[in-house]
């Protein structure tokens, strides 16, 4: 089964009226553009270079699918991406990162994003790394947000392998930023997440929300940073980690305020499954394992 078929079987629509790019390793398998966007892409030795522009005022109804997959067991994939959402444009990017057979797959995403004034960009990255735990994944995004930027990263199916997220958003005046990360680590998975927002423009708002579950011998370390550097900015960091078995979880919210009229808050909960939730579900007839599953799935939804 080629990656295109895998994507189709996962419900990714690759039709005429829809913009998409399907990459296997460093090979572009399929691509389509729609009116109002430009997509420059080029195969490189170890990956691809991409420059994607959503033109001024363009409001896309359908999402743009970026399918960055690796069908081989062993490969290196380096994606260089520059993504620009011009003034008053609206778009949703769905990045599907699928490494179904990964034994030694090394995936690096190096992205620079610009969201101009009045633009809305949602960037949703969904990963599936197969069951071998052999993926090393390093998504790195640098975003300048003058509009509305919402990013969601989820890695819930199969194994994580090694994950190192490094996101930084520079938030301009009256911008809205939301970063949501959901990861379920198993086996000896290693999860390292560093997400930061600098609220540099007045009235900028941000939320960093992380939901991490680790079990077996998995390890996670989440650092969430929010800096309030301008008047009337509002930032919030919200992290929950559920730990089972011999897993280890660390969470470090770092909030800094450099302006007297800025406000940044945080809440963090880290620990094993909540007893009361567990007992409540067991009192509905679920065995402990099933109850834990319901609680974790709910949290990661």
């Amino acid at each position, binding site marked *: 089964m080629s990656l295109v078929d895998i994507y189709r079987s996962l419900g990714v629509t690759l039709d005429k009226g829809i913009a998409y790019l399907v990459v296997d390793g460093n090979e572009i398998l399929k691509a389509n553009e729609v009116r109002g966007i430009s997509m420059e892409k080029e195969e490189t030795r170890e990956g691809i270079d991409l420059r994607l522009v959503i033109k001024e005022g363009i409001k896309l109804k359908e999402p743009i699918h970026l399918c960055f997959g690796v069908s081989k067991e062993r490969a290196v994939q380096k994606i260089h991406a520059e993504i620009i959402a011009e003034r008053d444009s609206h778009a949703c990017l769905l990045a599907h990162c699928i490494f179904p057979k990964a034994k030694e797959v090394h995936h690096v995403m190096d992205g620079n994003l610009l969201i101009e004034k009045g633009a809305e960009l949602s960037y949703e990255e969904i990963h599936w790394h197969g069951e071998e735990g052999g993926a090393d994944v390093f998504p790195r995004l640098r975003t300048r947000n003058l509009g509305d930027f919402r990013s969601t990263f989820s890695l819930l199916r199969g194994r994580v392998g090694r994950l190192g997220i490094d996101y930084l958003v520079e938030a301009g005046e009256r911008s809205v930023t939301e970063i949501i990360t959901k990861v379920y680590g198993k086996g000896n998975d290693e999860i390292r997440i560093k997400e930061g927002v600098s609220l540099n423009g007045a009235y900028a708002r941000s939320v960093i929300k992380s939901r991490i579950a680790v079990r077996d011998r998995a390890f996670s370390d989440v650092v969430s940073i929010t800096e309030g550097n301008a008047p009337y900015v509002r930032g919030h960091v919200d992290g929950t980690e559920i730990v089972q078995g011999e897993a280890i979880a660390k969470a470090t919210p770092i909030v800094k305020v450099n302006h007297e009229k800025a406000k940044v808050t945080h809440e963090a909960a880290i620990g094993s499954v909540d007893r009361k*939730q567990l007992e409540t579900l067991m009192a509905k007839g679920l065995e*402990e394992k099933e109850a834990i599953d319901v609680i974790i799935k709910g949290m990661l*939804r």
Partner: protein
Amino acid sequence: MQENTQGKEGSFMVDILKLINVEVERNGKRILKGISLSIKKGMIHALLGPNGSGKSTLAFAIMGVYKLSKGNVYFEGKDISRKPIYERARLGISMAWQSPATFEGLTVKEYLSIGGNANVEEALRMVNLDPARYLDRVMDSSLSGGERKRIELASVVAMKPKLAILDEPDSGIDFVTLDELMRVISDLKKEGITVLLITHREEVARIADRASLICDGYLVKSGNTWEVTKFFRKMCGRCKYGRYSEVKGIEPS
């Protein structure tokens, strides 16, 4: 062991639940002290007692949330004292928690459907919640305390248990009327469900067929509702702290 009951029909009725000399300790402290109690099948049985007397602890002991340090719990004649919570649930015991848990990401519909319940909408209507408005709500803190209590009650209704333990279903629901609660409980009874109605309010206990009074971890009195509530009233008037030593001296008139 069959208790000789006040009601004429009492002695012919089957005990659905029987506690014998039940004790529960929490953090090394004896909370329930030698409680023996029978609940007749198909009845509404009130468990009355002041705050902190051990009512919730007793509910947890029946449900299996707390382990017994002594004694036994029998359900339909079977000793369930060592059975895990979920097995008791599967046998037909269901409990509405006094302060229900919240769940991130779980919808009301999913919560009520756990255990394969099909009559979720009907259960919501029974507690006066509009299914169209509530089925897709998330069970997190966006729900008010009162809404959570109603949903909790609905979750027991949906389970169609043999024994429904309702731990202070009237508390925290600001707008609930006693009539409304009575209607739900009598609907349960009509379906043949036995109800253990836990409350610290005499007027709520009054809707029960039978009642027991718990105080300071002791079962002080069990029998017909009128006598038990009368004793409760007297006790509350007499003893400041609801200590058993104070209660012992009170003779039922």
